[in-house]
């Protein structure tokens, strides 16, 4: 089981935090700092596994990480996960981000935090690996984004309709007004 997924930069600034087991807010931040200290002092020529810090559960858990340019991607896992498998999964995740954001960099993770979470949810669910096929992941994310955009368009219409209704002076309209007059008035409100 994957217990936590943390992404932080070379200075320890968190860019994505996802805990699949409950930790209080304070504890989460402490775990991030502890993990950063454990990972950042390792050279790039040492292996990518190390024992988890005491805050997250100690030696029963492993930290498996990859270091890309300015970012560390760290998965905290228990013994049921394959270390080499998780290493490859990190690669799949990073390549997926790269595809979704077109040459992903740290700024993309900063300014599109919510999108990154949505992408991650298609890879890992409840601390378990859900999908490892990058194309499948990208396709699902795009479909969801499209759905959100189309719904955004529809949701704007009722607001505008309400505004239009409010601007009508219904009591002042004569009872015997013909349909032609009403039709003429509606187009004039469209600039709102």
């Amino acid at each position, binding site marked *: 089981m994957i217990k936590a997924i943390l992404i932080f930069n070379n200075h320890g600034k968190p860019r994505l935090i996802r805990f699949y087991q409950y930790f209080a807010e304070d504890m989460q931040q402490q775990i*991030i700092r502890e993990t950063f200290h454990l990972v950042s002092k390792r050279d790039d*020529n040492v*292996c990518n596994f190390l024992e988890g810090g005491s805050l997250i559960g100690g030696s029963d858990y492993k930290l498996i990480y990859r270091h890309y340019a300015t970012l560390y991607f760290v998965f905290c896992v228990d013994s049921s996960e394959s270390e080499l498998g998780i290493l490859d*999964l990190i690669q799949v995740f990073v390549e997926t981000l790269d595809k979704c954001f077109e040459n992903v960099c740290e700024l993309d993770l900063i300014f599109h935090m919510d999108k990154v979470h949505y992408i991650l949810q298609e890879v890992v669910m*409840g601390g*378990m690996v*859900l999908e490892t*096929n990058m194309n499948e992941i990208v396709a699902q994310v795009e479909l969801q984004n499209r*759905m959100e955009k189309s719904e955004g368009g529809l949701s704007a219409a009722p607001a505008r309709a309400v505004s239009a209704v409010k601007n009508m002076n219904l009591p002042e309209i004569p009872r015997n007004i013909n349909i032609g007059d009403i039709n003429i008035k509606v187009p004039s409100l469209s600039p709102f």
Partner: protein
Amino acid sequence: MTPSVRLQEMIRVIRSARTQGEERGIIQKECAEIRAQFRQTDNGERSHSLAKLLYVHMLGYPAHFGQMECVRLIASPRYSEKRIGYLGAMMLLDEKQDASLLITNSIKNDLSHSSQYVQSLALCTLACMGSSEMCRDLAPEIERLLRASTSYIKKKATLCAVHIIRKVPELAELFTPSARSLLSEKNHGVLHGAVVLITELCERNAETLDKFRKAVPELVTIMKGLVTSSYSPEHNVAGISDPFLQVRILRLLRILGHNNDSASDAMNDLLAQVATNTDSSKTAGSAVLYETVLTIMDINSESGLRVLAVNILGRFLLNNDRNIRYISMTSLQKIVQTDHNAVQRHRGTIVDCLKDQDTSVKRRALELSLALVSPVNIRSMMKELLIFLSSCPVELRSQTASGIFNAAERYSPSKRWHIDTILHVLTTAGGDVRDETVPNLIQLITTASELHCYTVHKLYRALVKDISQQSLVQVACWCIGEYGDLLLKGECEEIEPVQVTEDDVLDALETVLQSHMSAPATRGFALTATMKLSTRITDNVDRIRSIVSIYGSCIDLELQQRAVEYNALFKKYDHMRAAVLERMPLMEKNSPGHTNGDSSGEIKEPEPAKTKPVEPILLSEPANQVCDLLDLLGGTDTPVQPSSAPTSTATTTSSADLLDLLGGLEPTPVPAVTVYEKNGVSLKIQCDSQTDTDITVTLIASNSTQNDISNFTLQAAVPKSVQLQMKAPSGNVIAAHGLGQVTQTVLLNNPNKVSLKMRVRVSYSDQGTMLQDTVQIDSFPSPSWNSQPSIGVL
């Protein structure tokens, strides 16, 4: 302005903060705006506000006030609001809070939503933070979705089922049939989830495990399909077809084949095929191979297959990728006990990994090397490990030293080799060894009688060379103290002769005593060694006395106390010094020959505990002296302090003693003390019992004259605060020649615990002549002999 720009704008503003305080100010302001937004009615902005709050939460600021907003957004009909609401729920809510109860109904509704993306949100959230109650309520829904028409929902429902089983194990049966049928799926995501679900079911229930053993042929078929064909190129990773799924299947096969011959047989061919055909040039292939090896080692596989597995791990040790080297050694560590010979074949490669640049790999190599030590390879392995000890990272020195000690103790080919090895470690990494090393080594040295001369010479030279290694210095001091005479002889076959003088040895010990690098315990060792030498040398005893005397005023109390005791040994009990400081007895029950004991006229009983630490033995020397002193005191019949003895004729006294013996008095529990003796009449006092405030004594009168004494009476007086009660005397006639006696019991109650005093008047008739005398008793004998009576005749 598009809605998402608001979040990005806030992020930009936060990032522009130059100080932590400024950032806090900005965030406080933003949070105030977010709260205001949450309180407003629906204006289309709530999802953006929550997104901003989640960013604030990631930075570590409080975000709990957004929980209810998550609940509201989840219930919204809009997908965009549902989406961010569910994300917020996963990040801000936890199952222990009441708010999570509020979303159960929303999740239930969304699980039946017409849009699979809304269903997906609900499944994801339930799998992430569903509580036991939620899982019980929603389990039937999940079971239904396991039979959904789309793979997208099926794979998510499957992992959701795993979460439910973990939360509420008794619901496992609900999912077992569906799990079985999911193995027929083609979609890799669903297959992956099915394997994870079945793994979870099997790990929790032995019966279920047995049932799913029937699925081994299916799993083998799926696995072979992955291994031999490339029919799904989209899952290809570096030439390996869906390594993630392969790893999961292999793990499940391991569980199914564990301790089961038929299941193991069913997968043997497959495992051999995977082990032989998988390309290990990339991480993905290595992951599959590694999992194959773990499975082979854990099931009842053929021995040939096991050798193949170990050889794969051996090849991994040579891999350029340090990750692969690391996991290979982790696995070899696990199987080194069961497949020792197969792992031994790779010993050379493993030892080479001690030179790896990666500390993690070094650590694994060290553990594995220590596990591979055997009687056959002890010499070569120790040579490698000692080389490693001199160059390894600081954090591994202690572990390396301990490992070497343990291995040497178990497999040492000879005592001399054993001592040499440990001395080597102490010389190289003396500061990193654990505390019990010193007593263990001392115990080892005492048992190697034939090597005492050799050992003390080697230790003396090491001491002279370097006194900073505390463990080494302590052992050296101990040996010099014990075997200093052997050192001074200068005759040792194994070492080229070097003449050592008494002054040389004392110089070395004095250097240890005075060095600022010496720990207090080390100085204690040196002082005791110096003292012991006083019975091993002939010419410089005065120098030793002088050294010991100086430390009698040492600021270190432990050292001072020891020195004071040693000074007393010199001044008052010099006649006992040789015996007190003779060689330590052997520390083993079955020690041969009592060699140490032969050097003295006495052979002591061996210590009952073999591995008794040496430090307590050293500390027990003063205690031995105290016992001896007590024995000395106990052996005398007269008090230490001279007292004004009653005047009497020598003849009478001598006669009285003899007559007492003839009288055949019964032994008393505590010796009685004579408080009065005059004209052949003696009075003794005996303490019968004593508490904090009460004391019961018996007065015993006897007559050693030629004539009977009659009309004998005793009267007593005590201070006012003490209550006195005298029982009736046993008689008033004391027969002559010590043949009779009169006893009388006195009870004293001393509630104020004042110093006890009692004045006794003795009256009697001797041939018609009335005699009377008075004696004062200022202290009473007690069973523990803590106080001595002083007698005054008034």
